[in-house]
């Protein structure tokens, strides 16, 4: 969400204004993972950023605290594909060593 806001050149204030939200609410959505926006709010934010609501929801699914209690390889899929690829290459090299 933050990335799209910045790409559009919107300040926190601007996006808040466009979506009839408070600035602190937008900041919270971008920086905290506890609050879940209402469907209506989500739609307005998606419209303002010109993305789909599904995309917004999926993009916020970054690794959470539960990651820590899970096996690394099971949660590997949570990392972005480009990160996974780099890590896999390093693991492959490591595996071949000595």
């Amino acid at each position: 969400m933050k990335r799209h806001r910045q790409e559009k050149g919107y300040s926190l204030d601007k996006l808040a204004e466009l979506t009839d939200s408070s600035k602190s609410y937008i900041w919270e959505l971008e920086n905290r993972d506890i609050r879940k926006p209402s469907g209506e709010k989500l739609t307005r934010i998606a419209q303002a950023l010109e993305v789909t609501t599904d995309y917004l929801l999926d993009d916020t699914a970054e690794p959470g605290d539960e990651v820590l209690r899970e096996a690394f390889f099971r949660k590997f899929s949570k990392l972005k594909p480009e990160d996974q690829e780099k890590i896999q290459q390093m693991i492959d090299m490591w595996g071949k060593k000595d």
Partner: protein
Amino acid sequence: MPTTPQGWAIRLTQILSLHMAAHGLPRFPVDVAALAQDFSRQVFPDAPISMVGGLNLSKGVEGMLMPRPDGSGEWGIIYNGSIRSAGRRNFTLAHELGHYLLHRQDHPGGLQCTNRNMADWDGARNRIEAEANTFASYLLMPLDDFRAQIKGRAIDIDVMTELADRYAVSLTAATLKWMTITDKRAMIVVGKEGFIDWAWSSQPLLRSGIFYAARQTVIELPPGSLAAREVDGDTGRYGERHEPGVWLGNEPVHEMTVFSPSNEMMTISLLIYPDRAPFRWEAVELEEEPPQDTFERFMAGKAGG
């Protein structure tokens, strides 16, 4: 074998001190990558750390500890090499080494750490992350040396920057270390785009009921603060003495702030409160506002005031 974060850090600190002195090498900063590999090979020959490597990963990923997939029992540490701050990288390596020493038996699949975990100094929220941070803090900045460095000096951003350089840690890590041992009433406030991302009060300040519960509530940086104003870097570092009411509490506060424009408008503020909290009867005479008790002040703080 030690079982606590401090215990492990003290053990490694003793070994490092002897080793560096014997070879005539500088004691600081700690070369964590070399230490992790040498120490684990000697002490845990069946489960050594056989790889420490940096990769250009996305923002938010700090580092990870993982077992070698071939079942050899070896471990590896990957850190995010795109993080420009050498201090943050060093802290990440020490954090992962802490996981290796303290948690690998309980987490045979390894551990993956994001920047959110690593800002977590709150034991209740995530015990193992707090333990890894404590280990890293004590390993990189041993208490004896840290105390010797600050003895008799007035603490400001320049002193903290000097310490951050000495130990190759971030300004935040050095400041948090000081926060945990100081008898001053002080607070560190990390701001992001005009809001308080997180804040930490020293014990003496906490005892007077002054703290931000910024992880629970969204709180804007006070408009009158240096952090919220676009002052130049020198003004921020030198700091400003605020009248009561800018920051929490009915007291004047000296604020020093570092701006980090490269890091999405992040600010790090060091707040120094008077050594002695005002008594209520003094507050009546000195302040225009009616005195509040600690609970009211706490609630006002939570509400963003």
